[in-house]
């Protein structure tokens, strides 16, 4: 198997514009092949055919020149734990990991590019970069898309744009999103109000693992709602602007906390660090909450000697599948909690 599941993804780097609040930026393009039913109506032979066509396309010289080497991995060849790790690293959706039928994922070595094959659409091309780098992610996705279009016949309509299985994606097929760490807005009880206001400017808010998930560890994902009638640049500019505004709001809340509740804030950060470096049993929920406090300490320069890259790595490594994979065996939830605590202690001790 060519997959290196333990490798760190590009998005975990923790540096770039607005990196004190924005964890990562993602561009997703939905594309479908002409003359083929959408995945929900495909039979197995058609699923295999799509995977084969995509597998051929990514080996074309033009694709290699545009974005480098891409590798295809069928999900059938992966164990449930291995699939789950790809979800925990935000490279594929839970739907692709759990879905029945023939599915595949295409990855670039740095995991900045991933293509889900036979999810809701034939291709879901994703570019995932650290911090606020939506424009960079779009340029990468655009280049990959151009190169793939030379090899594959995409379903496109002059009026409606790129045709997708769900009309909520038709047009550009573009979903731009950013992942933000907003603990001060949560602590000062402004998060609900601020995030509700976003829906009025065409921005949707979700939890850590996308649609229908909760915002664990004060991490929120925001994305554009509308995909038709606006250009990709307009959609991305709008989401970038909203992300910056949201980061400003969070920064204001952090400064307010520093001014009005300095000791409580430093105490909270210090205690979280204390527990993480000493606990012997940690549930993933507790670990995510404590990591959020420690991340806040790092981002506000209360805690020194730690960096965001390590926190991002920890956020992935404390997840159940990753823990079991590195342990090399299936574990009960309690065994995982013990191993999680040991792993966090070891990594934080450096």
């Amino acid at each position, binding site marked *: 198997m060519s997959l290196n599941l333990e490798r760190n993804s590009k998005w975990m780097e923790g540096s770039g514009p607005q990196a004190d609040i924005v964890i990562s930026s993602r561009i997703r393009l939905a594309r*479908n092949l*002409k*003359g*083929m*039913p*959408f995945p*929900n*109506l495909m039979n197995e032979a058609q699923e295999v055919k799509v995977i084969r066509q995509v597998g051929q396309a990514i080996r074309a010289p033009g694709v290699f020149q545009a974005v480098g080497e891409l590798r295809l991995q069928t999900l059938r060849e992966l164990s449930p734990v291995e699939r789950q790790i790809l979800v925990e690293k935000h490279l594929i959706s839970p739907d692709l990991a759990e879905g029945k039928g023939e599915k595949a994922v295409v990855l670039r070595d740095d995991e900045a590019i991933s293509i889900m094959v036979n999810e*809701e659409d034939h291709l879901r091309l994703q570019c995932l970069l650290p911090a606020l780098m939506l424009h960079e992610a779009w340029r990468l996705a*655009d280049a990959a*898309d*151009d190169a793939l*279009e*030379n090899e594959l*016949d*995409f*379903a*496109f*309509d*002059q*009026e*409606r*744009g*790129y*045709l997708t*299985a*769900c*009309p*909520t994606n*038709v*047009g*550009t097929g*573009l979903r731009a999103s950013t992942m933000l760490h907003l603990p001060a807005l949560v602590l000062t009880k402004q998060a609900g109000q601020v995030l509700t206001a976003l829906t009025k400017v065409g921005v949707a808010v979700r939890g850590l693992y996308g649609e229908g998930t909760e915002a664990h560890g004060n991490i929120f994902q925001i994305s554009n709602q*509308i*995909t*038709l*009638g*606006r*250009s*990709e640049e307009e*959609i991305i500019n709008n989401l970038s602007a909203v992300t910056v505004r949201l980061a400003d709001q969070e920064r204001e809340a952090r400064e307010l906390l520093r001014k009005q509740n300095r000791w409580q804030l430093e105490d909270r950060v210090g205690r979280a660090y204390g527990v993480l470096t000493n606990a012997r049993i940690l549930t993933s929920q507790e670990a995510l909450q404590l990591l959020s406090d420690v991340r806040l300490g790092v981002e506000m320069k209360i805690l020194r000697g730690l960096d965001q890259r390590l926190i991002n790595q920890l956020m992935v490594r404390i997840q159940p599948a990753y823990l079991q994979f590195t342990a090399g065996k299936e574990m009960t939830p309690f065994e995982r909690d013990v191993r999680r605590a040991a792993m966090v202690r070891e990594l934080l001790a450096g």
Partner: protein
Amino acid sequence: MLCERCQERPASVHVTRIINGDKTELYLCQECAREMQPQLDFSIPKFLAGLLDYDPGLEVKAPPAVERCRECGLSYEQFHQTGRLGCPDCYHYLASRLDPLIRRIQGSSQHRGKVPRRAGGNLRVRREIERLRAQLQQLVEQEEFEKAAQVRDRIRDLENRLGEQGGWQ
């Protein structure tokens, strides 16, 4: 008190009806009240829906036959249940019901984003002509006639290219 309609069950519903100014009061049991519902029920949404259907000067349209995509066979009702279309051609064959929905959720029905090089047909050229026309307008306003002439020639070239490809599709 017994129900005035069936004279069997105890009356528990008091109904006042006003028809052409004549007021009648009825004391009914639950069952009879329910049975008389169509007469008694006045629902504002239904009333409004009735108004919308009322189209003076036009005949009442027959309900459309079940619409299906001729490529994959998906009906609009099936789409309605799953929220997923069956194939790219569904957009064409189910357009009469799908397009209003798309306008409602997207606020638009015209793609303004990226046009793929191969599958985009002449849309790329048309977009370029639109852009050049706007530029031409601006140059004329600024009295930059020499540059405007160049842009005009470029538009002509592109329009000829469209003509050769079989016109505006």
